[in-house]
């Protein structure tokens, strides 16, 4: 069997791109996954979704993504809660920077707003604001459930004839005369007209098998979750001073990420100091937090590129090879828009959203890096 498209990686971007391809009439699709669907970044993510970024590319794609999150959550019966984001600022200099970001957001139609400590208390019941000078509220941001967001769509794909092959490791991309012809897996040779690499932290390795150098480095990141509680607040919170975030997930647990000093490409190991760091930061804001129960702590990767923006679209040197990776910590939230862009590229030769054209892998060789002022959490 020769496929129209073989997708390497059954994370949210591989799966959603398969959906967008199917919606555009491409039927013979295989998704090859070395572990299980969602097993990389998708199922470890913080679940937040926002458009309040500091580059045009991110804002435009994420705005489209939010529209699509609404559509997809209705179509496939999973939650998308538009509960907003609140950045907590404890220094005047940060407030000054954020005033500039807010102006930038407004220029692209994202209605963020500086809020005073009293307004923060309204948005985030029970929070203590005595250390804060101000906050920033993004009312169109939200959160979803990565499990149902992926699995519900995957169920639909399988019913529609998409072949989801797992566990099956892709070992080599087969290229003949500078054209991608298929994927050699640990089981067999899989022939396809088009190959899409959406392999998250494994993307660099699999791309190197056909001589494509993707400047991706995997940065270990840490997160914990508490038991489920009834809803206390809706927004995802970012403590700007420490670049730590806290969100009450749609399932009810409080999910926290906090920064530890890390080395690129080190195995993602648990480190007990993470728990101390995370608990200290958030106990400062919530009197009740010390009495919650932590039930799980996990480590995963941010798949980082030099400019913290994804790599999307075709590869100049290899015909029929496409890439969707390097999301630098934002792969879940951008998935609906990135997948739409990549599917359009594959089917019609253009990504639809013009800004996506700035994100091809060739930008690194050609020195067209994208500048992003802030990557949080």
């Amino acid at each position, binding site marked *: 069997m020769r496929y129209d498209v073989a997708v390497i990686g059954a994370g949210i971007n591989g799966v959603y791109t398969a959906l967008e391809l199917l919606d555009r009439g491409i039927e013979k699709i295989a998704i090859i996954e070395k*572990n*299980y*669907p*969602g*097993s990389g970044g998708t*199922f470890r993510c913080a679940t937040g979704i926002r458009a309040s970024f500091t580059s045009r590319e991110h804002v435009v794609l994420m705005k489209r993504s939010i529209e699509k999150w609404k559509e997809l959550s209705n179509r496939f019966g999973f939650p998308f809660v538009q509960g907003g984001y609140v950045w907590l600022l404890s220094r005047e200099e940060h407030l000054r920077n954020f005033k500039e970001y807010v102006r930038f957001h407004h220029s692209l139609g994202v209605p963020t707003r500086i809020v005073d400590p009293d307004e923060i208390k309204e948005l985030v019941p029970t929070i203590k604001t005595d250390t804060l000078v101000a906050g920033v509220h993004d009312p169109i941001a939200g959160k979803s459930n990565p*499990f149902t967001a*992926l*699995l519900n769509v995957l*169920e639909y794909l*399988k019913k529609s004839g998409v072949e989801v092959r797992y*566990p099956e490791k892709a070992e080599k991309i087969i290229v003949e005369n500078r054209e991608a012809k298929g994927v050699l897996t640990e089981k067999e040779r899989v022939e396809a007209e088009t190959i899409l690499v959406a392999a998250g932290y494994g993307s660099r390795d699999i791309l190197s098998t056909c001589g494509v150098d993707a400047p991706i480095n995997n940065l270990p990141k840490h997160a914990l979750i*508490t*038991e*489920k509680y009834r809803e206390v607040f809706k927004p995802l919170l970012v403590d700007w001073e420490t670049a730590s975030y806290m969100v009450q997930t749609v*399932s009810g647990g409080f999910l926290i990420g906090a920064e530890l000093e890390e080395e690129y490409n080190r195995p993602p190991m*648990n480190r007990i100091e993470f*728990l*101390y760091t*995370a*608990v*200290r930061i958030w*106990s400062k804001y919530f009197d009740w*937090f*010390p*009495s*919650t*129960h*932590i*039930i*799980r*702590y*996990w480590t995963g990767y941010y798949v980082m590129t030099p400019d913290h923006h994804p790599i999307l679209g075709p590869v100049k040197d290899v015909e029929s090879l496409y890439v969707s990776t390097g999301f630098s910590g934002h792969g879940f939230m951008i998935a609906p828009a990135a997948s739409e862009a990549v599917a359009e590229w594959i089917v019609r030769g253009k990504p639809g959203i013009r800004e996506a054209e700035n994100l091809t892998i060739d930008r690194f060789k050609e020195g067209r890096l994208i500048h992003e002022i802030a990557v949080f959490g």
Partner: protein
Amino acid sequence: MDPRKIIICRCEEVTLADVLEAIEKGYTDLESLKRYLRIGMGPCQGTHCIPIVLRILRRATGKNAEELMLPTSRPPLHPVQAKYFLGGDNY
């Protein structure tokens, strides 16, 4: 006995009927079942439900333990109150 009345996962209130329906839908490894039904994601961390689901799944699919993908264990083994990570003299 009615499978809708047999609780497999007490933390997340998942019944035998839920498990059988999920297997029917194609969730035939534990990692995927865990995310689909939330079995093993509550305070017991799967110590009660996962061995039971493992047996059901093995009977239903004939797969061996490796193919069934036993979920990765994550710390802590039991729920721990956050206050124990505050440090200082208080706890």
